């Protein structure tokens, strides 16, 4: 029993103090999101993932920013301008502040989480636009577990996993807070694969992502993510199953990499 407890403690401490080895401070990844139906690819939006340094009076944090903007041909039909931000520790990628400001075809929503790690809680602000143009706000405080992260920092934490030590079939579970609710995201390492991308032919780790107890991103290896099998672990391709056809996210360019 004592042995198991020690192993558990060791495992927890490895997870908590996992050092950031993959993400640099001025990294910019650009993707093209498209919809694929019977091989006919329709490009929908540009997605970017950027990192930068943010200084406060007492500390320097890493800002992880993800944006999504529809291509101009879609703007008159369904305009998307989404902004997701997470301010994390540059060393351990622990989130402190998360912001989500989305505008999708007239629907506008703002979410903010302040992570209070000492009390394992979150102070959240939700702001939504009503049909008549006015806005309403809701403030909430709720408890989370010690390892819960936001969506953006979870994506970067997946990149920071020591996949080279894993064997195919290994799983890692992440606790993610989204819309004031906690979800369990399961990341399963499937295999190594070499694929052609816009940034060259890359050997990649193929991962399957699923959310437990949710109707989106269900199991059965339908939602896949390919990370380059090098120290940067750049996400180069992602495929998501949707009721008709599937969605794809392909890398267009990658600059400012750490390694």
């Amino acid at each position: 029993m004592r042995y198991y407890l020690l192993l558990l403690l060791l495992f927890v401490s490895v997870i908590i103090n996992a050092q950031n080895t993959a993400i640099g401070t001025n990294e910019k990844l650009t993707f093209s999101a498209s919809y694929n139906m019977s091989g006919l690819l329709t490009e929908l939006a540009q997605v970017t993932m950027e990192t930068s340094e943010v200084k406060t009076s007492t500390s320097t944090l890493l800002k992880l920013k993800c944006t999504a903007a529809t291509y101009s041909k879609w703007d008159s039909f369904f305009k998307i301008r989404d902004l997701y931000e997470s301010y994390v520790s540059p060393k351990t990628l622990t989130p402190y502040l998360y912001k989500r400001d989305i505008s999708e075809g007239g629907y506008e929503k703002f979410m903010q989480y302040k992570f209070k790690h000492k009390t394992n809680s979150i102070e959240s602000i939700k702001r939504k636009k009503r049909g008549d143009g006015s806005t309403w706000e809701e403030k909430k405080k709720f408890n989370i577990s010690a390892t819960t992260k936001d969506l953006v920092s979870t994506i970067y934490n997946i990149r920071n996993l020591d996949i080279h030590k894993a064997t195919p079939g290994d799983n890692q579970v992440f606790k993610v807070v989204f819309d004031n609710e906690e979800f369990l995201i399961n990341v399963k390492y499937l295999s190594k694969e070499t694929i052609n991308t816009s940034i060259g032919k890359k050997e990649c780790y193929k991962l399957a992502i699923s959310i437990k107890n949710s109707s989106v991103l269900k199991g059965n290896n339908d939602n896949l993510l390919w990370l380059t099998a090098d120290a940067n672990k750049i996400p180069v391709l992602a495929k998501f199953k949707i009721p008709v056809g599937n969605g794809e996210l392909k890398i267009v360019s990658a600059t400012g990499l750490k390694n």
Partner: protein
Amino acid sequence: MKKFLVILGFIAAILAVVLSVTPLSKIAYLPAVAALVFGSIATYLFKGKQDSKKSIQLIFLMTIIALVVTTYKSVYNTVEVGNTEELLEKENESEENAIEELEELEIDEADLE
């Protein structure tokens, strides 16, 4: 049988025309091919008969228009992001607010470099 094929052909051809003018124009190839197949079968099966062929000709005409529009769009339209000024403004404003919020937060020393 002929009527059925013509109706299917019409539905597919109309769908192809509608899809070809939307940004989802590439998908118009699927109903366009279906319309051509239905139209061709209808023409082939009832070659010698004296029925009016105008409806089948109309199916072909619509399909050709859809295919021309779709092909033109896929060749000449480049994908580019529209106006993102709004988003950039939002980003700058958000970072300024975030720094204020972060000043109030307790950040673990061990987490910092």
